[in-house]
Every structure is written in C-alpha cells, then in structure tokens.
C-alpha cells in the first residue's frame, strides 16, 4: 500500500461530488484527502484525490472514476514529477515566554502569522502534507487549540500535455477535435 495521487476533471454539475464520494464508499477505497476547486475552464472542476492503495488498486480506482459520466479525465500523478501543496491553519497557545520560540519555528517553516492575540497565534503554513505534519508535531508541546488542513493539491511539472487526453468539454460528434473519430463514450 502506498499513497497515490489522482487528478480528476469533472463537470461542475449538482451531485458530482456525491457520485465520487459514493463510489469510494461503495468500492471500499480509502481516501486520504480529497480537494476540489474550479479550473480555468467554466463548468469544469478539478479534484485531487489521494488514496491509499496498491498499484493495481490505484488502477481500479482510476478506472472506476473514469466510468462516471461526469468525470472528463483522470490523470495519475504518482509516478510523474509533480508538485504537491497543502495549506494548514494552526491556532497555537502562547505565553509571553513561548511566543518568541513559536515565532522562530514559524520562520523556520516559512510559515506566516495571520492572527495574534494575548493567548494564541494563528499560523498559516503551506507545503507538502509531510511538512505540515512536521509543523504540527513541533507545535504540539505548546498546545494546539485548533488545526485545519485543506488536503493536498497537485500539479505535474513541466510543459508536456497528455497527448491522448480528451477535451474537457461536452461535445457532439461533429465538433472538431483532432481525434474525434477515435474517441467515444466508452464506459
């Protein structure tokens, strides 16, 4: 078992998240994190799903996602050079004695203080999920009041596009797409 990161482009229609969540529940797939957001294209959302699975299991997750009609494309970034980022907000207890230490740690993690009051600090930290986990670990002794993490988002490095990737739109057969003849609603 290892972590696999899948990117799914989905149509932004009611119920699409429900479909994906329902699929994962039904097939007993283990979601580590799931994030969703808009893309540059209207009507298309982008999901980053991190699953704990074997290599064969990840292929099955990918195929099952792809079977959903509203899912337009699925890419597996696990074995591609990629960037992974997550954002976390950590509210930590501080006293006059510990504030300086916490600020120093914040600096080390290249994090930012976004709220200050007499007893707590809220710190914003971005980075790989591991980095945020580490940050949480070092702040724990001071007393963490609250923590929120967005879940990982990912993007492949470089400029190469996936050549066989279908277009991210609903099309009719007569719309012009270079590979229109060889593409169809397959599953």
């Amino acid at each position: 078992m290892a972590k696999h990161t899948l990117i799914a482009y989905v149509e932004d229609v009611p119920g699409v998240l429900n479909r994906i969540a329902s699929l994962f529940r039904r097939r007993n797939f283990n979601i580590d994190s799931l994030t969703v957001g808009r893309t540059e294209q209207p009507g298309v959302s982008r999901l980053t799903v991190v699953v704990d699975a074997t290599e064969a299991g990840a292929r099955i997750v990918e195929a099952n996602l792809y079977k959903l009609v509203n899912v337009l494309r699925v890419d597996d970034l696990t074995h591609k050079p990629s960037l992974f980022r997550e954002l976390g907000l950590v509210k930590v207890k501080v006293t006059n004695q510990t504030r300086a230490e916490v600020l120093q740690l914040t600096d080390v993690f290249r994090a930012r203080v976004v709220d200050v009051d007499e007893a707590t600090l809220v710190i914003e930290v971005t980075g790989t999920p591991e980095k945020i986990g580490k940050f949480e670990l070092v702040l724990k002794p001071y007393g963490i009041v609250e923590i929120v993490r967005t879940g990982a988002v990912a993007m492949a490095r470089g400029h190469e596009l996936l050549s066989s990737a279908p277009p991210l739109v609903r099309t009719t057969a007569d719309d012009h797409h270079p590979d229109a003849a060889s593409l169809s609603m397959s599953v």
Partner: protein
Amino acid sequence: MKLTGAEILCETLTHLGVRDLFGYPGGAILPVYDALGKSKLHHVLVRHEQGATHMADGYARASGGVGVAMATSGPGATNMVTGIATAMLDSSPVVCITGQVSSKLLGSDAFQEIDITGITMPITKHNVVVSRVEDIARTVREAFVIANSGRPGPVLVDITKDAQQASCDFNFEAAAPKLPVKRQRVNYEKADFDRAVELLNSAKRPLILAGHGIMVSGAMRAFEQFVRAGNFPVAMTLLGIGCFPASDPMNLGMMGMHGEAWVNHAIQEADLLIAVGMRFDDRVTGDLRTYARDARKIHIEIDRSEINKNVKVDSALVGDAREVLEQLLPCIERRDRPDWLAHIRELKGDSAVRDIQGLPDNGHLYAAHVINDLWKETNGEAIVVTDVGQHQMWEAQYYHHNQPRSLITSGGLGTMGFALPAAIGAKFAKPDADVWVVVGDGGFQMTSCELATAEQEGIKVNVAIINNAFLGMVRQWQEFFYDKRYAATPMTGPDFVKLAEAYRLKGLRCNKRSDVKSTVEKTLAAKETVVIDFVVEKEDSVFPMVPAGADLDKMIRRPKQDVMLESGSDKDWEMPASALPNVFAEVKAEAAALRGRGQVAKKPVRKAAKTTRR
C-alpha cells in the same frame, strides 16, 4: 413547433425507435401519461413497478436494444429499485423515466417526493434530474446513448412535473447528445497485445471463458472464428450461454458453482484462460487463492475497472470484444491439441455416468427431466426466461441453447421474481418467438400479479413452475451446510392451476414424467398464456456444487449409483474428499456446540411443506 415537456418526451422516445414501454401511472407523471395516450407508443400497464423494470430488462436482453420503464415519483420510483439493480449487475440497457414533484417543491418532503437519483446512484450507470423543459429531449437521448454504449447499464431520468407541463420548441435533431468524449474504444498497449498473441500461440492447454460481453458486443461470428482459428475449447458463464452453440463439440458447457464438473476441472488444469466479456464473479471462480493456479490469463473486457479486480491477469485487452477478437484473429496459429482435448473428453466421461438424463422413469418427476423434455419438445428454439434458484441451474444444465439471447436470467443480482415480468418484456421484443418462463414456486409468487398484465395485453408466455414446495436452493444449502435444519424453506402456495384460471388464463398440472410431453404440447397449442404446475420431487439438489468459497474443483457430486431411485435417503450426495473451507467447519462446530448442551445431538427432523395435492 411548441410542445409540452410530456409531449416532447413521447416524441423523443418515438424518434429513438421505442415501440413499447412498461409502466404505472401516478400523480407526478400524469402529464406524460396524457401525452402517451395521444402518441404512437404502446404502453404496457404493469401490476407493480418492479415488474416494469424487469419487463424493460427482458425487452432489452431479448432485442439487444434499450428497454424503457416508467413510473411516478415516490413509491413508484422506489419500487423500481430492485429492477434497476438487476439491470446494473447484468449490464442491461434500461432507461427508467420517473416523474418528480414540481421543481419548486423539491427538497420540501412534498407528497410522494423521494430523492430517487440519490437512492439509485450506486445502482445506475448514470442518473439525472431534469427540471427544465428545454433539457428533456437532449437528456433522454443522452440516456439512451449511455445505457447502450460501452458496458451497458440502466439510466434513470427523473423529470419534474413542471418540466412536463411547460412548453418549448422541439427539434429532435437539434437535441443531439452532448456527452463527454472519452478514450478510444480499443485501448491497450501493443505490448499487451503481443503478449496475448504469444500466450495464445504457445499454450498447450488453453480454455476460453465466454461471457455475456460477447452477446453485448455482437461478437458471435468473430468469436466462432476465433475458436476455430485456435481450436480452443469453450466454457460458458451463466449469462454467456447462447453466445456459442451448445451443440458445438468445442462448447464444454457452464462453469462455476453449478457448472459441469469437467468444465471446472478443465479450468483448474488449463495453462491459459482466455476470458472474453466476463468478470470472474465469485460464483465462477470459487476460492481465488486456488483458482487456475497453473494458468496464464488473458482478459478481453470493455470495462477497465474489471481488470485485475478479482483475478490478476497477464494480458488485459481493454476494448469491445468483437473489435479485439477481430484484431487477434489474423495472429492465431492453429494447433490440434489432441492430448488436451482427449483429456477433457475423459473428464466428461466420468461425469456422464452421474448424469440423470439417462435414468429410467421410476415414477418420480425430477425438475431436470422436466427441463430436458421441455428442451426436446421446443426443439431447443424457445426463448427461456428463468428466475433464480435450483430451476435456474437445472435450466442452464439441461436446456441446450444454440441461439444468442435465448436464455434470459438474473445472474449478478440473483433476483427472485424476475422471470415472469422479464418474459413478458421479451415477448414484446420478439412477438413471434416461443417464450417460456422457467420459475420456482417461490419466485413465481413474488411477481405472479404480472399474469394480469399478460392477460390484459393478450400475449402468450408459457410458464413452467418447477414446484417442489420448498425454497429449493436455500433448502439445498441447509441440507449440505446446516444439518438439514429446514428453517423457513418449506413453502406452500396457491393452487397454481386455479390461480391461472382466476386470471382467465389456462392452468395445467403435471406430476408424472410420462405426462410432460403432452402437457407441453397442450401448452403450445393454447392461444393464451398457460401456467403449468410441474409438481416435482421435493428434496432434489443441484449437482455438482462448489460450496461458496471452496476450491473450484472441490465439488459436491452426485454419487455414481442410481441416486434417483433412493432419493430421500441420507446418502444421496458426496462431500468433496478434502476438507471444506473453514467457514463451513466453523459453522458446523458452532451448531454442534449449540446442540450438544448436555444432551446427545438429535438428528434433525425433516419437515416438508404440508400439501394436500399429492
């Protein structure tokens, strides 16, 4: 031209080539029913919405086209759930149209409002709510494309009442489907293809596992050429039956839990399995850890998510079965394989001794005899629709299908009550065919109300009830694995002859083998639907049987002596020589412990359903 949403729906269905649809009206779909009355569509009024979905399913499976079922919101829609799930598990193209409360009321728990798209999400290929009249035509067209493309499946379209009532311009052409474009139909690496060819040409003991996908893709011709090209023996899944003639010497018969013994032995001894359009269901594989351990596997399958799901394969060719087989054909080198084919014949010889067909008539009526005689009397040309249970397995074993789509049965979901409505649907798809229902007394009673549908429509289906006054398959499991404690399996029923007559249909009873022929003849001669009550031996079992989760070649077998003469004795079956899997041992130990509380274990008493008929 401005039409209402309801009229647009009917027009769209007509344009899509729909002739018959199956449904039940209600408040939220009334506008559609009003328009239906004025359209050319023939609506079949069912007696329960489950029947509508099964009829649409049977229609789809007999015709290869899309079946359409219709129901109102709320309970109408929820009654469809079993039928939709049946279609999903057997990849059957069914479009269900349900009414929904007005869009303004959505989410308010209005009268007969239910979130049917939420309920059916995991059991449909796709589903959608339509609340704008402008979307109806395109959505219904898309539903048909989705239902019948790739791996087929059910699609549910939920249309709000206000969308049915509103009007807009209708232009069928302009409402073309706009679906996401996906990957190519045939989609695999060349390395996988080359590997498959290498395996096919080097195999010493190859075996094809032929499934439903061959029929779905219309690959029967390509498949036959493929079999001839490589001289490959063929084993069938239950739903694959018919895709390759049973009379062909290369066709070994059905595999799996109740498959022929020689087929299961051949699978375990093969060095190459070529799975075509099948999905390695647990009823087919038995214990996965010991399944075909010596065999390399090639999987030809359109649904990528089936690859390596249950059985790890060496070469996966994802694509339409016909296209893949046609691509493989020129690469196959013919081999004679005399040793392998002779070995299979040898395995078969052993089983033939145990076959009940050759047994003399001893006054008992056995279900297998009924089905075997039915096969002979109908020249093997009928469309047979079966339910789920013992009769289903006997049908698969003793009715030899040569034509594709001539056996319609609920495989994946195993839905009791499927047979009668599905047969009515099949009869609408093939009005000229002789349609037989083979059904148990239990399953028949689940949907027997649809006899009224057959009567009202004036259609003829022939219903053969295999009546053993038991829920036979469950009883069989209780006999084998629960020390014959027949809990809740003895079952009474109505007088089926009188029941048929109450529906103004013909009823016949048969309890002697010598009467089977004349009963079938009378049935065929009748103009109306006939219900035959075949009163068969009560405690007969289906052999061979692979206990759930056991190794595929560890079968419970019919003993070699003439068991039929002494049926009812305790020695009428043999457990496999090796130990059964732990699950059964544990159950038995547990049961023994419970029984043995301070007293000697009692021999369970046999209880049969009380019946006054015999």
